[in-house]
């Protein structure tokens, strides 16, 4: 499989954490230790839904140096394409599943004099492992965590208990308490790096505020897991394998290609890593680029497409696969 070697795991605990959020603990079925990982890393969880394989990326939130198990937290998304619904409704303790090796597209800049972490909602998960690592290695960090309501805020008390109210600050939307981003950004010592993970609007807002505060882009880091958006169905022709593949309303090109039994490369499945970049042989219509990997020029050229999140509208699309 092109995404890398998978690890067979057993679900050993499912814990409700907050409204619509559950934590899953995976231990290796073969009894061996899990690989160590770095804070910010994610794994791809493969879900076998009656023969239909779904693959979603989830940030690892267990301690990076604890190789007895991996833990993830899953938010049951309202208009889920199936992944989070499957995790919430079908996965039970004792189930056998598969996860990929860890991949990190949200690595802290270890040169940072200070790490300023900003999380919104379920975007807290990559930071939980990151803070564990910062704390163990004596790095200076500060977490600002925005939640919608108290019952939706996962791990608030745990984090405050662990790192203290000086380093972890909670802001509750329902109580009209917002992260004072602009003020925070004006008072950071030189050499600070900022990391933000949360809803797309929040990420955009924080990054824009950062640039407006004169921060160089090198010090601004974000992780957005884009999910493939539903859209009109379409067909693609694969020139190398000579196959035609139909992409359904709720399916991504990558999923449709995999379902047809064709091996396509991938890593993050979220439009960020560039691994599934594919050459377009012919495009009679419009490519709907949803990734953050290709440059604007590359997107405009119509010669490349990321299979994991992008779509197509028009008459014919031929891909070099």
């Amino acid at each position, binding site marked *: 499989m092109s995404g890398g070697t998978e690890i067979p795991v057993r679900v050993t605990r499912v814990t409700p954490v907050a409204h619509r959020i559950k934590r899953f603990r995976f231990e290796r079925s073969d009894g061996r230790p899990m*690989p160590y990982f770095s804070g910010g*890393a994610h794994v791809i969880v493969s879900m076998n839904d009656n023969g239909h394989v779904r693959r979603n990326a989830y940030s690892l939130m267990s301690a990076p140096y604890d190789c007895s198990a991996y833990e993830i937290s899953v938010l049951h998304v309202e208009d889920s394409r199936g992944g989070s619904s499957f995790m919430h409704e079908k996965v039970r303790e004792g189930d056998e599943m598969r996860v990929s090796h860890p991949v*990190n597209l949200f*690595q802290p800049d270890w040169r940072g004099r200070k790490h300023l972490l900003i999380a919104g909602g379920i975007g807290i998960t990559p930071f939980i492992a990151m803070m564990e690592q910062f704390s*163990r290695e004596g790095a200076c960090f500060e977490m600002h965590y925005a939640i919608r309501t108290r019952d939706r805020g996962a791990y608030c008390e745990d984090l405050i208990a662990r790192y203290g109210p000086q380093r972890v600050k909670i802001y509750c939307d329902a109580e009209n308490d917002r992260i004072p981003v602009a003020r925070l950004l004006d008072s950071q010592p030189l050499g600070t790096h900022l990391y933000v993970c949360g809803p797309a609007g929040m990420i955009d807002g924080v990054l824009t505020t950062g640039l407006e505060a004169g921060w160089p882009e090198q010090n601004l880091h974000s992780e957005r897991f884009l999910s493939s958006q539903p859209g009109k169905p379409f067909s693609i022709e694969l020139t190398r394998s000579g196959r035609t593949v139909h992409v359904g309303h709720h399916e991504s090109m990558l999923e449709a290609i995999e379902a047809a039994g064709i091996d396509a490369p991938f890593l993050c499945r979220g439009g960020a*890593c*560039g691994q599934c970049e594919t050459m377009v042989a012919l495009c009679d219509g419009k490519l709907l680029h949803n990734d953050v990997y290709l440059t604007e020029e590359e997107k405009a050229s119509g010669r490349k497409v990321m299979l994991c999140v992008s779509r197509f509208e028009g008459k014919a699309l031929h891909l070099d696969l």
Partner: protein
Amino acid sequence: MAIAFKQETFRDDFSYRNSPENIRRFPFPFDRDEYMYAVNMEPHLKGQKGTAFESLIDVDEHYVAEMHDRALVLKEDPLRYQALPHMMTAQWDTLELLMEEQAAGFPEHFTLIRNGDQWRWINRPLGIDDTFTFGDRSTLPYEPLEYITRQAQGDFCIVDQRDGNLWMDAGMVTTQADWSLDFDIGMNFMEWHGPVPLAHQMGVFDRALKFLLNLQQGKPTRRFNWTMTINPRLDTSPENYHKWGPDRASVTPENVGEKVHLRVEVQSLWRLPRSNAILFVIRCYLMNMNELVTVPKWARRFPRVLSTLPPELIDYKGLTRYRQTTIDWLSRFDDGAPTSPGTFPD
């Protein structure tokens, strides 16, 4: 089977030689009769017994002598080992990887006993038996990278990944083909490859960088590189160029067999788990022409490869003064017969 480690030198009287068994396990890099420049990355998987790939971190009969030579180089010039401060996690990752792989590949020589963070490392060839706390640098006599690379063959660089590039931010480099860690530390992938001719224009480095940025944990990759060295000298650093440079003018038709060495680097690249950095292992193998011609296939192929090198590479690899003399000498062993595919002896 236990390796019989040799007592030999890589300087002064140059007593380094390969045993017949070691010649056959030499990683000869040319799989065809003409020179081709390519990214040539392949998965770093274990190969057959009796090859340099029987373990993913190779240890051979020169281990003890090479480690002795490294210690001498470091005594003269401690700057051959350097690590920028943000690389400490990657240093521990590297220590773990090299201990685990050496112990797994050569259990009769190395043993690692882990009990939580309390580790005991036994290195029999060098007479080391140390107990330390993993993650606590005060429990080792050197920084973790220096400690373990004083006990592992090859040069080692750790590259940090950020801003869509790779940065050479730590290393132990004492057996290099004419590049300086002290000068290059802190550079990114394109910068440290700056002096390499041809490849930039061919897009080789763009493709290689893109590939390496997505290198996955548990899936190391490797490539070959090669050059030639006069005398079995490991330390062909730019720092000491004024000391070894004159060797290049010392080749005569009479001494080619002894003096001229094929120098092969097996470069393996590993994604490190805790730091997300990449470890770059540059493992150097040396074989003189007398030894090379004991394998008829290599004796035929090598002069053919040398004859098809582009001029820029002849210059960059520093072969100008002795390439022709070497081809002439080797040609006596090339009867023109076709060679078999692949790199291994027939």
